[in-house]
């Protein structure tokens, strides 16, 4: 019997985070077959203040769409990508998504760098390994990796890469950097 087939299937989960419109959907689509995944969620207290619910007092749930992609490495070994909802009021969903996650890619846009602060805070607090992928929309890097690292106040071991999420080769490099980073984190974990 083939030993590879007799093993239990392994599924790895990678989160794609970052501010609204930063390229999460594009990254997932560049490297995997992308499908929209809907969740019907109860509005958080935070959302109630933000959503205009006048006249719809009965509404207590809302549909959140996430990007969902799958990369089959081989039969029985699959990497699932989840684009986390950008709006902060949906953050209660992140706890389930990040449970057991191998790591996260935080996409940053140097024109709106602050948008990715909340994602970075979240993964730092949870101890989830992450890399920062700086999306260069015009194909040119306007800032160096070092500048971004300083601006984001990142710990030295956190990889920062310049990328173009529209390109498959660039998206691949980002994913590989994350898995390598997770591997290092795993090796040094107690």
């Amino acid at each position, binding site marked *: 019997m083939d030993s590879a087939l007799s093993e239990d299937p392994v*599924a790895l989960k990678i989160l794609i985070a970052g501010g609204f419109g930063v390229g999460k959907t594009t990254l997932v689509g560049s490297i995997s077959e992308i499908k929209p995944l809907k969740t019907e969620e109860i509005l958080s207290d935070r959302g109630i203040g933000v959503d205009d619910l006048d006249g719809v007092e009965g509404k207590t749930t809302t549909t959140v769409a996430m990007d969902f992609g799958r990369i089959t490495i081989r039969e029985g070994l699959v990497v699932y990508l989840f684009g986390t909802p950008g709006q902060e009021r949906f953050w209660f969903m992140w706890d389930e998504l990040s449970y057991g996650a191998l790591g996260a890619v935080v996409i940053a846009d140097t024109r709106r760098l602050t948008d990715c602060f909340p994602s970075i805070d979240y993964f730092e607090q949870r101890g989830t390994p992450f890399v920062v992928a700086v999306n260069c929309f015009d194909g040119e890097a306007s800032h160096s990796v070092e500048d971004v690292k300083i601006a984001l106040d990142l710990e030295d071991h956190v990889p920062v890469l310049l990328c173009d999420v529209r390109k498959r080769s660039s998206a*691949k490099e980002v994913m590989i950097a994350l898995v390598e980073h*997770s591997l290092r984190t795993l090796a040094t974990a107690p």
Partner: protein
Amino acid sequence: MDDEAGPIVRPYALTKGRTRPSGAMLDLLALVTATGEAAGSPEQEAILRLARSPISVADVAADLDLPVGVVRVLLADMRDQGLISVTSQAGPRPSERVLKEVINGLRAL
């Protein structure tokens, strides 16, 4: 149809208003495999078709275009009825060997 207006049938109508699945929570990555044939609803039939070979809970929800919460309730019912089996994929942390395999697999994409 006016998509902006949202679904005509509220999602949880399919689950008779229940929002919590029976039994243990189904992980998004848990694998569902059909073990029975007699489906009680079009949704159950669709799930059995999808689950002829193992498929994740997240894939079922995406393919049926139904919210994850709804699909979890439907799947828990089907598990109770013996129509499907559910295997967790959420195990211990992946081994170094598996991660190296993933890196090589990504390079080969």
